[in-house]
């Protein structure tokens, strides 16, 4: 059973490979024609995907009923416990919120107080095994632009990478291409967090000396240093592990994101662009 392709097949495959590689190079250089093609595809597909989403929702619901049953049961019990606890904390939280609001006004914290925001619904999760982006139902008509950060009440979600008039794509912070300048909330030490893929924590390359103690649970927020792509003070995650970076000259921190990206239904886009 010999497997030998005819010469014509090899020629066609060669042409297709060369064409693909050319497209990859053009795409990596972010040439306008590729960007326009993707935005055009989004404009065409958005209305249709909305309708198909509705039609196929029973299938998806049935699937989640089967595959997520145990998780849902556990989550239900956990949520019940949290609701009880939350009721007890309600009064104290109301007071804390008032104090935070006053502090924000006093210190003029950009994230907490003055940034205009647009809340959007997540209409589609990552579309392939190698995709780390979600689609949202707000676009340039609502004031969104490429580069704006997205967050939830828990913390940073990612940033807007593509916008049409009525929709946008948000790159999640788990994307291997994602980078954000961060600082430790306790000490102010700076570093750069990078995504490592779905279900994996962020890795933070820092300049922190290996002799420094960074306890697990330490909060990490966006640094907002000069020309940063993100405003300062957005919560990113908490340190779960500390290890020596390559070369042993500085620490590398493993950071668990605060936002649960698997259950993202709504997010808020901060109408802020790098200065």
């Amino acid at each position, binding site marked *: *059973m*010999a*497997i030998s*392709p*005819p010469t*014509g*097949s090899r020629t*066609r*495959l060669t042409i*297709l*490979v060369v*064409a*693909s*590689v*050319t*497209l*990859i*190079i*053009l*795409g*990596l250089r972010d040439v306008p024609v*590729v960007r326009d*093609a*993707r935005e055009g*595809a*989004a404009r065409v*597909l958005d209305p*249709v*995907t909305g309708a*198909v*989403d509705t039609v*196929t929702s029973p*299938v*998806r619901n049935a*699937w*989640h009923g089967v*595959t997520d049953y145990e998780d849902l049961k556990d989550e239900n019990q956990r949520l019940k416990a949290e609701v009880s606890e939350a009721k007890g904390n309600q009064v104290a939280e109301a007071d804390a919120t008032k104090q935070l609001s006053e502090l924000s006004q006093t210190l003029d914290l950009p994230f907490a107080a003055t940034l205009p925001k647009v809340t959007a619904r997540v209409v*589609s*999760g*990552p*579309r*392939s*095994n*190698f*995709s*780390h*982006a979600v689609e949202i139902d707000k676009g340039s008509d609502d004031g969104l632009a490429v580069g704006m950060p997205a967050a939830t009440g828990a913390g940073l979600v990612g940033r807007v*990478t*593509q916008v049409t008039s009525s929709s946008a*794509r948000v*790159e999640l912070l788990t*994307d*291997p*291409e994602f980078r954000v300048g961060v600082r430790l909330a306790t000490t102010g030490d700076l570093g750069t967090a990078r995504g*490592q*893929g*779905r*279900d*994996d924590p962020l890795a933070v390359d820092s300049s922190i000396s290996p002799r420094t103690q960074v306890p697990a649970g330490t909060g990490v927020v966006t640094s907002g240093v000069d020309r940063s792509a993100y405003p300062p003070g957005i919560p990113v995650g908490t340190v779960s592990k500390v290890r020596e970076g390559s070369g042993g000259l500085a620490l590398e921190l493993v950071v668990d994101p605060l936002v649960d990206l698997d259950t993202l239904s709504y997010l808020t886009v901060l109408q802020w662009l790098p200065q």
Partner: protein
Amino acid sequence: MRSHRWPALRAAVVLFLALLLQVTMVADLRVAGALGDLLLVVVVAAGLTGGADRGATWGFAAGLAYDLVLDSPFGLTALTYALVGYAAGLAGSALLRTSWWRPAAVAAVAGALHAVLYTAVGNLVGVAYPFGQVPAIALVQAAWCAVLVLPMLRVMWWVHGRGEPDRLEVLLR
């Protein structure tokens, strides 16, 4: 040989529907954190029924369409689908009068191969896709391909007709 009309139009319809179902429904059906890949099933079926040439062409077209709606490097899916479609076509050439389960086995191997290939080529072009997630993705893609390739072969016959080379028709009739 049965007369057959508008194969290009039929192919476009199949690609568009597969793309729509992939981004709306299949993209929400995760198992162990991984997704199936309906477009890959289409590409493998095209290779199995039409040979390496057709597999590569469908792979390139399907990959290009998928790349338009993804955030990964443009052209990467077109490249990997074309290679996998070509390989499936070569394997299809060797399936003459073999048992019915071989197309499913070839499709499973193609599904797993694509996960490895995509991650490897992605890393080559500078995107650090983690290799740790490849086993789960490979298993899920292999299962999807194995289960869906047989009905997808019939879709391919609807697109291109049952002309020569058509080695699987006898087995699946």
